């Protein structure tokens, strides 16, 4: 089956004492914190900040989803319910704050979202986690569609078609920290995302986290070592709902609007895609997936109208050829890294990637031209593709792109085995003298 979880249990050996030891164990977290704080200084444009905010929210959401899927073995098609409901609770709270009925600094609004997510997860989880597997997936789908459909009925809570809006500038500041600009919201999001990630990682290192894995692997055996699989699933479910609600609260602060789209099957599907593309077998997988997905979503949609098609193809390719996701591909190279043979892979990989890129250019060109012919603006005959103005209704662009695609595919077909062989060679266990 798919790749196993990394076992990071430290041995009962001698651990470096003091500050040096602490840094060694938590170095990754420190480095991440430093990078995150410095990032807005490097990427200053408003677009970049906005995308990074989006990424932060997506990271928390995707990690919370993986508590269900990767850690707990529960495939849910309705996780956006807890994200959205948490967000709605948060935005209603924000409006209460603006009216003066409630005192709450904006910085603590995500906590409200988290509590909202937890409440609904505890409510719906009480019956959804009775069974695992397909039944669980179907109930989650049912609940998702139920909430989505009831949004048109419960207009006061969901705001009907326009949704519910709020204004974060109306809330009192915390320690004179106000969050009016996107850059300030960035730090808020990064703070909560960091805290949430740390908490979710910590959860996976607790007895409950370990039992969640055990119930995922073999629910029957877990019962025979004293644990109720139903209760274990329920606790995991509530924890996942809590963090999804936290992400929803962050969404409320960032966008100041929640709509019915946030509880839809599309949103639930997106988080599934994010987590799966990133790699559900590793803790950091969904982080990668969320970043890549958000990047493609925000960047690609500016360049092409069919970015969802590309995403769909990417997703399907991941499911069929790389089920361990991006994280799996990275971890696959650990033996080569340990044996210090990674540098040998650079040349074959660049070659294969180059061929793949050529093939992709050809395919993308063809697809974009088809799209233009089918749904392009009336009256236009040229399309701007890869920085060239292409006359779509003549023959030669089609011939060129088709040739490029075929040539790239053929070259890839020749280059891929070379890359694979280089990988196998680099990954062999190091020979001892």
């Amino acid at each position, binding site marked *: 089956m798919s790749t196993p979880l990394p076992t990071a249990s430290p041995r009962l050996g001698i651990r470096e004492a003091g500050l040096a030891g602490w840094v060694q164990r938590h170095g990754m977290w420190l480095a991440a914190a430093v990078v995150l704080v410095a990032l807005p200084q490097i990427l200053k444009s408003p677009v970049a900040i906005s995308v990074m905010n989006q990424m932060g929210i997506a990271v928390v959401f995707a990690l919370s989803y993986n508590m269900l899927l990767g850690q707990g073995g529960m495939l849910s098609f309705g996780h956006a319910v807890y994200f959205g409901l948490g967000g709605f609770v948060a935005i209603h709270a924000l409006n209460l704050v603006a009216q003066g009925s409630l005192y709450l600094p904006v910085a603590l609004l995500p906590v409200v979202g988290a509590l909202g997510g937890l409440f609904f997860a505890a409510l719906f989880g009480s019956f959804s986690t009775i069974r695992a597997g*397909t039944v669980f997936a179907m109930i989650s789908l049912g*609940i998702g569609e139920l909430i989505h459909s009831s949004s048109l009925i419960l207009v006061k*809570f969901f705001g009907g078609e326009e949704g519910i809006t709020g204004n974060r500038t109306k809330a009192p500041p915390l320690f004179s920290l106000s969050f009016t600009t996107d850059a300030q919201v960035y730090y808020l999001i990064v703070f909560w995302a960091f805290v949430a990630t740390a908490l979710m990682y910590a959860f996976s290192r607790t007895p409950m986290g370990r039992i969640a894995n055990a119930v995922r692997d073999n629910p029957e055996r877990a019962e025979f070592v004293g644990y109720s699989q139903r209760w274990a699933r329920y606790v995991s479910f509530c924890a996942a709902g809590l963090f999804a609600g936290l992400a929803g609260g962050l969404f409320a602060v960032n966008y100041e609007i929640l709509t019915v789209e946030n509880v839809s099957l599309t949103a639930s599907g997106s988080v599934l895609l994010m987590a799966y593309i990133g790699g559900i077998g590793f803790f950091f997988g969904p982080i990668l997936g969320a970043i890549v997905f958000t990047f493609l979503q925000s960047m690609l949609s500016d360049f092409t109208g069919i970015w969802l098609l590309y995403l*769909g193809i990417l997703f399907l390719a991941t*499911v069929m050829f790389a089920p361990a996701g991006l994280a799996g591909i990275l971890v696959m190279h650990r033996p080569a890294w340990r044996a210090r043979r990674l540098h040998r892979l650079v040349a074959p990989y660049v070659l294969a990637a180059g061929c793949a890129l050529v093939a992709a250019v050809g395919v993308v060109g063809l697809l974009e031209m088809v799209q233009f012919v089918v749904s392009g603006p009336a009256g236009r005959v040229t399309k701007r593709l890869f920085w060239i103005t292409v006359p779509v209704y003549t023959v030669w662009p089609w011939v060129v792109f088709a040739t490029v695609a075929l040539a790239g595919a053929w070259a890839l077909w020749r280059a891929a085995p070379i890359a694979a062989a280089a990988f196998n060679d680099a990954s062999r266990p190091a020979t001892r003298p």
Partner: protein
Amino acid sequence: MELALFSILNGVVYGMLLFMLSSGLTLIFGMMGVLNFAHAGFYMLGAYLAYTLSVHLGFWTGLLVAPPLVGLLGALVERHGLRRVHRFGHVAELIFTFGVAILIEELVQFIWGRPAKSYTVPALLDFPLFRVFQTTFPAYKAFMLLISVGIFVFLFYVLARTRAGLIIQASLTHPGMVAMLGHNVPRVFMVVFGIGSALAALAGVIAGPVLGTFPGMAQVLGSIVFVVVVIGGLGSLTGAFFASLLIGIVQTFAVALDYSLGDLAGGLGLTVGRTGLLSDLWPITIARVAPILPYLLLILILIARPTGLFGTRET
């Protein structure tokens, strides 16, 4: 009276349409243990292909050619996609069909564009069949009913009376044993997947003119079909039949009823509030609640009887 009659008729037409969709889905699930998310996508493809064919070659060509084409596509998807993913487990299979569903939806928008297509009822069938007081029953709906019942009879006959059907039935519950008896079970799976997809496409061909041909048609009907299959019992054709009719009639009736939930509560002797976040609930008519009824039913059944009404398996 008239309302009741037409609601029942329309409910049965809708229910039989759901059966055409859900029969394929439950067969695929029963045999391969995979809940095919892309099933509604094949329904949509059938409608769109038939539309394109009907524009150039007439409705009847579309009716005859589109389902086998989509069936072929389904078989290919099974052979080259699902079979490869099978060894990664059930979760991966489910995610794969989910991906196929997304891809089909995007492809349809890509090839045919976003606006709805005017896929119309053929002139031959565009007349009212009979009339009761003020309401007419269109002939096309009778045609839909005819096709659906025909499919039901065909399925019943094939599964119960032919040798191939016997093998398929056996593979539904004991694929391993059937393989041991020398049958090419992977090929059986591929054929069943193909036939299931063709059935879905046929449903699309005949439902397109009535329910609309637009890129969201798969999502709209997709969830309902899942509800039907799960309520009826995963892997049970009888269950799919009864659950389809149940959901079809319930939804059609609910849409026609104008009583509000407040009326219902009042009838039960409860008083309802006028303010608060849930105060929207009471003036709502049953008609507006109709869309969520199937999901409520789904959740209730899954809690009370996870194997569904007639099913024997949960996974």
